[in-house]
C-alpha cells in the first residue's frame, strides 16, 4: 500500500470517529443545568473537530514534488532583498550570497529605511538599491507590500525571487525553482523557510516543520500552496495582471460609490438653499451625477465618464465662484477635513469609508461647499487613484501579511502555485520571546484581516478545496477562544464540582479516547515522524496572542482602528531579564490549574468529589500544564550562539 493510501485510511477513520463523537456530545451528553460552561465546551470541541477534519482534507492529496524540471536558461530574474531596519551586516551578507546565485539575474536591495550608506555599499558591489519614489510621500506606505510594489515598477525581469533581509539564498535556488514555470499558468513557487539560529529543541517554536512540509504539500495537492512572503519565486506577469485587474475592478466600484454620494450631497445642499441661481446649478450637477452613473451602468469606460464629469464640474464651479467667498472658505476647510478622514493611513484601502460619506451628507452644506465636496469625492477616486502612491498595487495591501491575500487572489484568477520542498535559503528566527510574540501576533492579525476582508469561502474563482485550504489556516488561528474553555472547564470541575457533561461515563470515554488516539496517529502518519509537539504546545500556549489578533483585526477592519503593527526585530534586544509581564495570562492560567488540582484533591479527601472525576480532570490539567509550560521555557530562553556561516562577511 502506498503511503498516501495509509494516510487516507487514517483520515477517513479519524473523520468518522470525530463526527461520531461530536454528534453524540451535542445530542446526548451536554449537561444543560450548567449550560454556561457546558455549551462553550461543546462548541470548543466542535471547533477542534472541524480543525481536525480540515487537517484531514489537507492531507488527502499531499503532493511531494520530486526533482524539479530544468529551468529555461534565458529566463530573466530580479532578486529582491526587502529590508527596513535590519542591521547592515545582515542585509549585506544576504546580498552577497544573492550575487552568487548561479542563474543569470540582477540583485536589488529594497531599502525601505533609505539608508545612504547601504546604497553606497550596494553600488560598490554592483548591486542595485531601490528606494521609494517621491509618489509615496504622504501616502500610505503599505509596509513590505508597498516596498515590493514600488520595486516592481522599477525593474523588468520575467521572474522575481523575493527574500527577506535575513534569508541567505543558496547559489542553486533559481536552478531548483525556475523550471516549474515552464507551465505557463504557474504563478509562484514557494520553498521552505528554515532557520539556522535555532537549537534542536526549538524553544520558541520557530521552525514550522508541519507547515513547511505536510501542510504546504497538502495545500499544493489542491493547487493552493501558500505564498509565505520570502524564499519564493513569482512570475511578474501574474502579479501585474493581478494589479491591473484589481485596479479596473476597484475603480469601477469606488467611482460609482463616489458618484452616488456626490448626488446625495448635492441634493441635500439644494434643498437647504435659498439662492435660485445656485439651486439651478446644483440641479444640473445632480443631473450630471445621475447621468454619469447611468453611463457607467451602460458600460461606458470609467476613464471617459470621470473625464466628462470632472469637466462639467469645473464649468459649474467657475460659474459659482462669483458667489459668497466667506461661505466658500468655511466649507472648503470642512471639505479638507473630510478628505483627510477618508484616507486610511494604516491600511489604505482605496475605498471611501461609507460612515464618513454619510457624515458629509448630514452636514449642512452650502452650494459651494457641496460643489467642493463633490469634487473632493471625485478626486479621491479618480482614475489616477490620487490617494495611493501608484495606481497599480500588484501585491495585496488589504492585510499586514500581504503574501496570503496575494496568493489567494492569484488562485481566484486561475493561476497555479507550487510548493518545492527543499531548503534553498537559510534564515534567522527571532531570538527572544518578545520578538517571537510580536511576530506571531502579526501573522495571526494578517490572516484574520484577510478572513474578514476577503473571506475565501465567498471568493469567486476558487475551487471548493481551495476555499477550504485558505479557510483552514484562518480557522486554526481562532484556537485562542477554544483554549480558554479547555483551561477553564477542569478548573471549574475541580474547584466547584461543575460538571459540563452529564456523566464521565463509559459512553463518553468510549467515544472520546478513540478520537484522541486516531488524531495523534494522523499527525504521526502525515508527519512521518517530524516533531509536532512544539507546534501543538504553542497552539494552546499562545492563546492570548490569538485572541488579541482576532479582536485587533476585527477593530481594524470594522471599526477602523490601527493594529499597532510592528516589524519583527531580528536581533536580540538588550533586555535585562525574562519578560514575565508578556505572558501574564498564561502564568495566571497555570497557577489556577495547579490551585484547582489541590482543591480537587481536598474535595476528594472530604468526600465531596468522586475519585474518577477528580483523577480524569487532574490528567486534563496535567495535559494543559504540559502544553502551557513551553511559555516558561520561552521566557527563560536567552538566544543561541550565532552560527559560524552567519557571521558578517
Amino acid at each position, binding site marked *: 500500500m502506498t503511503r498516501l493510501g495509509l494516510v487516507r485510511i487514517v483520515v477517513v477513520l479519524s473523520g468518522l470517529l470525530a463526527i461520531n463523537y461530536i454528534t453524540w456530545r451535542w445530542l446526548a451528553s451536554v449537561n444543560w443545568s450548567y449550560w454556561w460552561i457546558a455549551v462553550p465546551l461543546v462548541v470548543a470541541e466542535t471547533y477542534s473537530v472541524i480543525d481536525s477534519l480540515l487537517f484531514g482534507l489537507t492531507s488527502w492529496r499531499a503532493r511531494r514534488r520530486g526533482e524539479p524540471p530544468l529551468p529555461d536558461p534565458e529566463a530573466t530574474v530580479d532578486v529582491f532583498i526587502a529590508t527596513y531596519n535590519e542591521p547592515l551586516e545582515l542585509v549585506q551578507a544576504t546580498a552577497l550570497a544573492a550575487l552568487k546565485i548561479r542563474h543569470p539575474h540582477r540583485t536589488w536591495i529594497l531599502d525601505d529605511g533609505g539608508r545612504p550608506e547601504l546604497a553606497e555599499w550596494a553600488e560598490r558591489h554592483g548591486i542595485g538599491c531601490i528606494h521609494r519614489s517621491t509618489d509615496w510621500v504622504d501616502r500610505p506606505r503599505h509596509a513590505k507590500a508597498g516596498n515590493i510594489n514600488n520595486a516592481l*515598477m522599477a525593474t523588468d525581469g520575467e521572474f522575481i525571487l523575493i527574500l527577506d533581509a535575513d534569508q541567505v539564498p543558496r547559489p542553486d535556488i533559481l536552478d531548483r525553482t525556475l523550471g516549474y514555470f515552464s507551465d505557463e499558468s504557474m504563478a509562484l513557487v514557494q520553498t521552505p523557510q528554515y532557520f539556522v539560529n535555532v537549537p534542536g529543541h526549538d524553544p520558541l517554536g520557530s521552525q514550522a516543520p508541519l507547515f513547511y512540509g505536510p501542510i504546504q504539500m497538502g495545500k499544493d495537492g489542491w493547487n493552493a500552496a501558500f505564498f509565505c512572503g520570502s524564499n519564493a519565486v513569482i512570475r511578474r506577469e501574474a502579479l501585474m495582471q493581478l494589479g*491591473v485587474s484589481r485596479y479596473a475592478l476597484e475603480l469601477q466600484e469606488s467611482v460609482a460609490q463616489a458618484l452616488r454620494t456626490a448626488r446625495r450631497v448635492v441634493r441635500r445642499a439644494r434643498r437647504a438653499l435659498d439662492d435660485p441661481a445656485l439651486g439651478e446649478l446644483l440641479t444640473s450637477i445632480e443631473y450630471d451625477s445621475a447621468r454619469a452613473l447611468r453611463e457607467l451602468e451602460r458600460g461606458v469606460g470609467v476613464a471617459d465618464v470621470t473625464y466628462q464629469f470632472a469637466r462639467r464640474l469645473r464649468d459649474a464651479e467657475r460659474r459659482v465662484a462669483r458667489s459668497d467667498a466667506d461661505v466658500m472658505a468655511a466649507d472648503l476647510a470642512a471639505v479638507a477635513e473630510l478628505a483627510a478622514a477618508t484616507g486610511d493611513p494604516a491600511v489604505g484601502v482605496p475605498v471611501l469609508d461609507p460612515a464618513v460619506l454619510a457624515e458629509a451628507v448630514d452636514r449642512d452644506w452650502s452650494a459651494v461647499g457641496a460643489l467642493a465636496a463633490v469634487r473632493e469625492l471625485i478626486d479621491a477616486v479618480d482614475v489616477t487613484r490620487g490617494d495611493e502612491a501608484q*495606481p497599480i498595487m500588484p501585491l495585496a495591501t488589504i492585510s499586514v501579511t500581504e503574501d496570503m491575500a496575494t496568493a489567494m487572489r492569484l488562485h481566484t484568477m486561475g493561476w497555479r502555485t507550487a510548493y518545492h520542498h527543499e531548503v534553498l535559503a537559510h534564515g534567522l528566527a527571532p531570538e527572544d520571546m518578545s520578538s517571537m510574540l510580536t511576530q506571531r501576533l502579526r501573522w495571526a492579525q494578517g490572516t484574520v484581516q484577510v478572513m474578514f476582508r476577503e473571506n475565501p469561502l465567498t471568493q469567486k474563482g476558487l475551487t471548493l478545496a481551495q476555499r477550504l485550504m485558505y479557510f483552514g489556516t484562518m480557522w486554526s488561528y481562532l484556537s485562542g477562544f477554544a483554549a480558554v474553555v479547555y483551561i477553564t472547564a477542569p478548573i471549574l470541575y475541580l474547584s466547584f464540582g461543575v460538571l459540563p457533561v452529564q456523566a464521565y461515563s463509559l459512553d463518553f470515554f468510549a467515544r472520546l479516547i478513540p478520537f484522541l488516539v486516531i488524531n495523534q496517529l494522523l499527525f504521526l502518519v502525515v508527519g512521518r515522524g517530524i516533531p509536532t509537539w512544539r507546534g501543538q504546545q504553542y497552539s494552546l500556549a499562545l492563546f492570548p496572542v490569538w485572541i488579541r489578533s482576532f479582536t485587533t483585526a476585527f477593530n481594524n477592519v470594522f471599526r477602523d482602528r490601527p493594529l499597532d503593527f510592528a516589524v519583527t526585530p531580528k536581533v536580540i534586544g538588550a533586555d535585562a531579564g525574562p519578560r514575565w509581564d508578556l505572558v501574564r495570562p498564561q502564568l495566571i492560567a497555570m497557577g489556577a490549574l495547579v490551585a484547582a488540582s489541590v482543591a480537587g484533591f481536598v474535595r476528594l479527601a472530604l468526600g465531596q468529589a468522586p475519585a474518577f472525576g477528580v483523577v480524569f480532570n487532574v490528567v486534563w490539567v496535567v495535559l494543559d500544564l504540559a502544553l502551557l509550560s513551553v511559555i516558561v521555557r520561552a521566557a527563560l530562553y536567552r538566544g543561541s550562539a550565532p552560527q559560524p556561516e552567519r557571521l558578517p562577511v
Partner: protein
Amino acid sequence: MSDIQVHRTDHGIGVVTPVGRLTMVAAKPLTEAVVALVDQGTSKVVVDLGETTFIDSSGLGALIAGLKRCRQAGGDLRIARPTEQVTTVLRLTNLDKVLTPRATVDEAF
C-alpha cells in the same frame, strides 16, 4: 523588443505608437515617452496600439501610469486601434471597462 514612436498632431495632440511587443521590457520606455510629452506641455495623448503585436500586463500598467500622468496635468490619455491580441488582454483584465479603445487616432480627441 518594441520601438516607441512619438509625434504631435497639428491640433497639439501627442501620439505614441509602440511598434512590436509591448512587454515588461518596453513598459518603462512607454511611460517615459508619455511623461516627456506631458512635461513638454502636451497632456492630451493617444497611444496608437495599431502596430502593437503583443501586450502583457506590464504594458497595460504603463498605459495606466501614463493615464495618471496626463490626468494630473489636466489632460487625458486614450488608446486607439487595438489589435486582436490587445483587445483580448484588455477584456481579460477588465481594463476595457476603464479605457475605451477608439477606432482611429483622429477620433480619440
